[in-house]
């Protein structure tokens, strides 16, 4: 028995040596890289562009870029990783930054450790930190969710304000301006989903806070930033300056139809804002409003995602090489996706290129990407932890009662904190 095992071992060794020799001989890389991603208007075409660039130098490498819904990518990853069968997994998957730690901690050993393979100092600081677990860095940083305040200059001017009046303002000031805009133009200040936590996360991160503290403990009740954010949500609900929307398409329609004066969200929305050609030249971008508390800055983030290589993928090294060459080295590529898709990468060397400082006619000649690049550097780095969605659900379960005035903000946060602690106990 032992003898047979030994023979098998020898054979395997020989085979490995032989194959590595042949590999060394044919330096040309080959294989098919399978990639799971979402958003046919953003991530998919960007990945196709990257693939095209890579195949120019490595003609024997082919790509299979699978276009799925975001929820489907997440669900398929969970099912395949939990089953322990690696055959159904892709070589590279796109994972949202809020979810990164969840995957890394839930499926240890499933993602390739890239600590010494990617030069992380070339990327925005906060990106690398959110994909670090126990000193090892996983994933290749991709797009930024740096946020901004997009506004219609025509509506703002009609209300008697100038562009300077929107620079570095607080949310209180934002509501005040909104009331005038509503009064003078009849337009709502912003399309807003009172059941969506996106803007709440923008508010919190601008103050360097999250639903959890640095150690990952629940921090809802004694969190000034969150308390202030809930207060502003309630103010929005009461003010009558918002156009209530439900879901993505209604929200996009609100600003594409010219129903609202502003949009506050991540830079990835640029493509959708520009989709309304009729309003070209009437838009500008200002810094994100900040919370009226100590330590809050006029810069924040919403969303953003990164590429992860699966540890057990057949083409792991090839996939890493591909990401390294394009996403961590090709400045030209970043310029191309910026002009084509409005994609702001987190690769710092690309941000000094000419495209980033070009004037955009759609935004009244403003150098928007220069502004966004500046704000990226000011985003407070925080630890999202692993329970962002649990926290979001806990808070927004109590928000309707806050809006109707049934319970105080204090009580609501207490209730949410109890619920959240119970949810994540084990």
């Amino acid at each position: 028995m032992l003898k047979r095992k030994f023979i098998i071992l020898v054979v395997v060794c020989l085979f490995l040596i032989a194959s590595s020799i042949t590999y060394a001989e044919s330096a040309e890389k080959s294989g098919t890289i399978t990639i799971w991603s979402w958003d046919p208007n953003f991530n998919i075409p960007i990945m196709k562009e990257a693939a095209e660039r890579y195949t120019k130098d490595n003609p024997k490498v082919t790509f299979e870029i699978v276009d799925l819904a975001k929820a489907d990518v997440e669900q398929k990853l969970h099912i395949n990783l939990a089953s322990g069968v690696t055959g159904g997994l892709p070589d590279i998957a796109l994972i949202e930054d809020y979810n990164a730690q969840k995957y890394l901690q839930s499926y240890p050993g499933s993602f390739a450790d890239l600590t010494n393979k990617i030069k992380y100092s070339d990327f925005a600081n906060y990106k690398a930190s959110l994909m670090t677990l126990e000193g090892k860095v996983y994933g290749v940083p991709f797009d930024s969710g740096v946020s901004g305040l997009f506004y219609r200059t025509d509506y703002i001017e009609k209300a008697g304000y100038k562009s300077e009046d929107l620079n570095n303002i607080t949310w209180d000031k934002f509501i005040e301006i909104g009331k005038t805009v509503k009064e003078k133009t009849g337009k709502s200040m912003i399309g807003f989903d009172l059941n969506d936590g996106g803007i709440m996360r923008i508010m919190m991160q601008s103050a360097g806070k999250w639903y959890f503290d640095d150690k990952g403990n629940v921090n809802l009740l004694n969190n000034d930033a969150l308390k202030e954010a809930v207060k502003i949500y309630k103010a929005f609900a009461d003010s009558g300056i918002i156009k209530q929307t439900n879901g993505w398409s209604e929200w996009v329609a609100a600003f594409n139809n010219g129903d609202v004066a502003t949009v506050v969200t991540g830079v990835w929305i640029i493509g959708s804002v520009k989709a309304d050609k009729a309003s070209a030249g009437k838009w500008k971008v200002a810094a994100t409003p900040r919370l009226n508390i100590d330590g809050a800055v006029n810069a924040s983030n919403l969303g953003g995602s990164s590429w992860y290589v699966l540890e057990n993928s057949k083409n792991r090294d090839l996939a890493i090489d591909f990401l390294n060459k394009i996403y961590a080295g090709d400045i030209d590529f970043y310029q191309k996706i910026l002009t084509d898709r409005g994609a702001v990468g987190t690769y710092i060397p690309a941000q000094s290129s000419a495209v980033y400082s070009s004037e955009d006619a759609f935004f009244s000649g403003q150098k928007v990407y220069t502004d966004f690049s500046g704000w990226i550097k000011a985003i407070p780095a925080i630890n999202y932890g692993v329970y962002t969605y649990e926290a979001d659900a806990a808070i927004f379960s109590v928000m309707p009662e806050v809006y109707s005035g049934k319970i105080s903000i204090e009580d609501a946060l207490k209730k949410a904190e109890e619920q959240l602690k119970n949810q994540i106990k084990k």
Partner: protein
Amino acid sequence: MMGENTSGSFIKSKNRHGWLFVSLALILLGVFLFYPIVYSLYLSTTSSRGIVQKFVGFSNYARLFQDSMFILALKNTLIFFLIQVPIMLFLALILATILNDKTIKFRGFFRTAFFLPAVTSLIAYTILFKMMFSLDGFINGVLLNVHIIKSPIPWLLDPFWAKVTLIIALTWRWTGYNMIFYLSALQNISEEIYEAAKIDGADKVKQFFYITIPLLKPLILFTAIMSTIGTLQLFDEPMNLSQGGVTSATIGPGNSLLTLSVYVYNLCFKYMPNFGYAATVSYAIVLIVALLSIIQFKVMGDKK
């Protein structure tokens, strides 16, 4: 002696062939039905973070009672069950009775029209409802134009109205389906019974309550249990009515559309993946369905 022996071996070989024929089905049943049932029972005694799993015994079941999210999901599901199912079944009964009346013209057309929603895809119709019930959607537009309401109803933006919308959607989709069951049963009720009732002076309403309903009792029980199971497993509609929130994690405003099945989904795919606890919630659903079905049998079933 000899004869007995041969017949014995004949039966044996017959049995063997019998087992051979059913074995394939049994194996498939075992692998795809019994194994998952047993394995999920084991899973429900563990708590997991993805593949990091630990044995916790029955503490998952104890956790259910303290989990306010689970209790909220249970409450929501029971509200849908207690309000939607009776409305739907009663409507279906009335429609079936009316459409069974031979004096009505175009019966075939109306039957088809009422049944058609039952063949539409769950997701397609939910998305249509979502569009129709949006703040500046079709329904509000009509209601505003005929001056029934002064300001638009926040159908999908308010916890109460979101539940109303889901109940309307479910009723639209499933009433015709139940109606068909009642229609087929009604055709087996003899005309003579109604004729006798008419001679005795019973009007249509009395006939409905004293003849139609008692004679349809077995079918009402059947549809009630089917609807109970359907409601307890409600997933597609709440998921799609609420989906598309730009970055939201709640199901409907204030989690007002969170049902038990959606909670199971969230536990697996939206939150930190805890397949163990998700299995526990699934078992809770099974227990609740069993309990409700027993109660319905006791209340409506024959005493014999």
